[in-house]
Structures are given as structure tokens and as C-alpha cells.
């Protein structure tokens, strides 16, 4: 290692590089930048509402307010008509039917729970074993049939 030569070279390179003038930017750079900024600042609905010009913001707000008021008035007007009253009564009828069905289901489920409680652990285990065996045999048979079907193709 020759530290004095190393330092000399470092100083030489430092002087040479620092003395380099700035490179000239391409003539297209400034117009490109200004065009990109113009495109960016141009109003686009895809940009945030806060970035729109004040006039556009006021106009868009007025439009939205008018649509909202129209919907409110329309909604209120519709609820006053007889057709809506009839439709409401039909819905009430359907809901009553659903309520009846729910109470029937509740009774059936209650009876089932009572039966299960009466059976005891031995019968319950037996039933569970039968269900499990049935499920396994369905699975096995299904697999066997599928393999048979694929092997024949």
C-alpha cells in the first residue's frame, strides 16, 4: 500500500470531478415538465373533489343538493299513495306467515331435543356410529365410482 499515492490520486480525481461543468439538459425537458404539470392540474373527475376549482365545487355541490332534495320529496310523495299502503299490508301478511313458520320449527326442534334427552348415551353413540359409517361408505363408494368412471375413459 502506498498511502501518499492513494491520497494523491484521490485529490486528483476530486479536482477533476469537481471541475466538471453542469451537463446541458435536453431541450425537451422543460416543455415535458410543463406539459406534465398542465395535465396534472387540468380538472379531471378522477381527481379529488378538493382539488377541483371553486366554481366547479359549488356547481357540483348544488347539483348533489338538488338531487338529494328531489329524492326526499319523491320518497315522501310515494309514501302518501294508496299503492304503497296496500304493499305495506302485503308485507305485514308475509311477516305474519314467517312468524307462524318459525314457531312451528321451534316446536319441532324442542321435541327433537326432548327425544335426544330421553334416548341416553348408549343410543346416542349408536346413532352417531351409524351416521358416521353411512358417511364413510358414501365417501368410499363415491370415490370408487369416480375412479371407475375415469378409468373407463
Amino acid at each position, binding site marked *: 500500500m502506498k498511502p501518499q499515492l492513494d491520497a494523491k*490520486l484521490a485529490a486528483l*480525481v476530486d479536482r477533476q470531478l469537481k471541475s466538471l461543468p453542469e*451537463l446541458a*439538459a435536453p431541450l425537451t*425537458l422543460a416543455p415535458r415538465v410543463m406539459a406534465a*404539470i398542465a395535465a396534472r392540474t387540468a380538472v379531471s373527475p378522477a381527481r379529488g373533489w378538493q382539488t377541483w376549482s371553486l366554481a366547479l365545487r359549488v356547481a357540483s355541490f348544488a347539483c348533489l343538493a338538488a338531487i338529494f332534495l328531489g329524492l326526499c320529496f319523491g320518497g315522501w310523495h310515494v309514501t302518501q299513495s294508496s299503492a304503497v299502503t296496500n304493499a305495506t299490508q302485503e308485507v305485514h301478511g308475509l311477516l305474519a306467515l314467517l312468524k307462524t313458520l318459525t314457531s312451528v320449527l321451534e316446536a319441532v326442534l324442542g321435541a327433537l331435543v326432548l327425544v335426544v334427552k330421553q334416548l341416553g348415551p348408549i343410543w346416542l353413540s349408536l346413532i352417531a356410529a351409524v351416521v358416521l359409517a353411512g358417511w364413510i361408505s358414501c365417501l368410499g363408494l363415491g370415490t370408487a365410482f369416480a375412479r371407475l368412471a375415469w378409468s373407463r375413459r
Partner: protein
Amino acid sequence: MSDAQKFEALVLNYQNMVFSTAMRLVANQAEAEDISQEVFLRAHSHWSEIADSPTVGGWLRTVATNLSLNHLSRYRSRWTFFSELFTGGGEDEEREIEFEASTDVEAEVTSADHRKLVEQALQTLPPAQRVPLVLYHMEDLQYDEIAARLGVSMGKVKTDIHRGREALRRKLEKTLRAEAA
């Protein structure tokens, strides 16, 4: 003067500096131009903060350096690999420099033409040498700062700068000899 005019004046005043910073780091005109455009777009986004700042030049230079390094980081694994492949790969390796006629270069490299030669020689250095060399000598970053920015060890930064200087000297000697012949 409107804001748009003021901004255009800023672009015209600083475009060479921003472009040079990017160009010396990425060594590719199209990429340097894209980076420069992005620098000015960011400046436009921060216009309210930098419009009247006296350090706007430094701000632009820092952003240009950061964006260029971000751009280069996509290829860093590739050039780090090649750098180590061709030079032995030791992180803290130090090598003796063999000077042939090193100091003669300085005497000759003075005119505008020779500055152009230095610029060209710099551009042809491999990125692994050029980037730390530019950051150290032109952006005035310290070894530890360069290591942190590039995500490599300080030993590697020192070695790459060392190799870059020598490669630059050799390239210049070769070019000058060829011109003289």
C-alpha cells in the same frame, strides 16, 4: 409574475443541475430525463413550501440524488454481483495502486475538451464504481452516508471508490494516449 411563470423560471434555472445530478448517477440520458421530470413534478407538489426558499437548489439536488438512487436500487443486486465477480469480491480488500504516469493526466486534462473526456470516462465506469465515486466526490457524502444510502458495508464503499478512481485514471490515460498517437 404568476405562479406558473415562476415555476417555469425555476425549471429553466435548475434543469441543468438536476439533469447533471441524475445523469452522473444513472449514466443514461432517457432515464436521467425521466428522473429530472419527476424531480420537478415533486417540486411542483411542494411549491408552496419551496417557492421562496433560498435552499431550493439544495432541495432539488437532494431529490434528484434520492430518485436516482431509488432508480438504481432496482439493478443494484446485479451490479454488486458483477463488481464482486470481476474484482475478487473481498469486502475489505485493499490493493496497492500501481501508478504508471498518473500525475501527467492532471496536467493534460484542463481544457473543455478534456473535461468532456472526464465526463465520458465517468459515464463508462461500471455503476458499482461510478455511483459511490460520484456520491463521494461530487455530492460530498461521507463513506458512512454512502454505505447507508447504498445498503452496503463501508469497506465495500471504500474499495469501490478506490477502484473507481483507478479505473478513471486508466481510462483517461488510455484516451489521451490514443488522441496523442
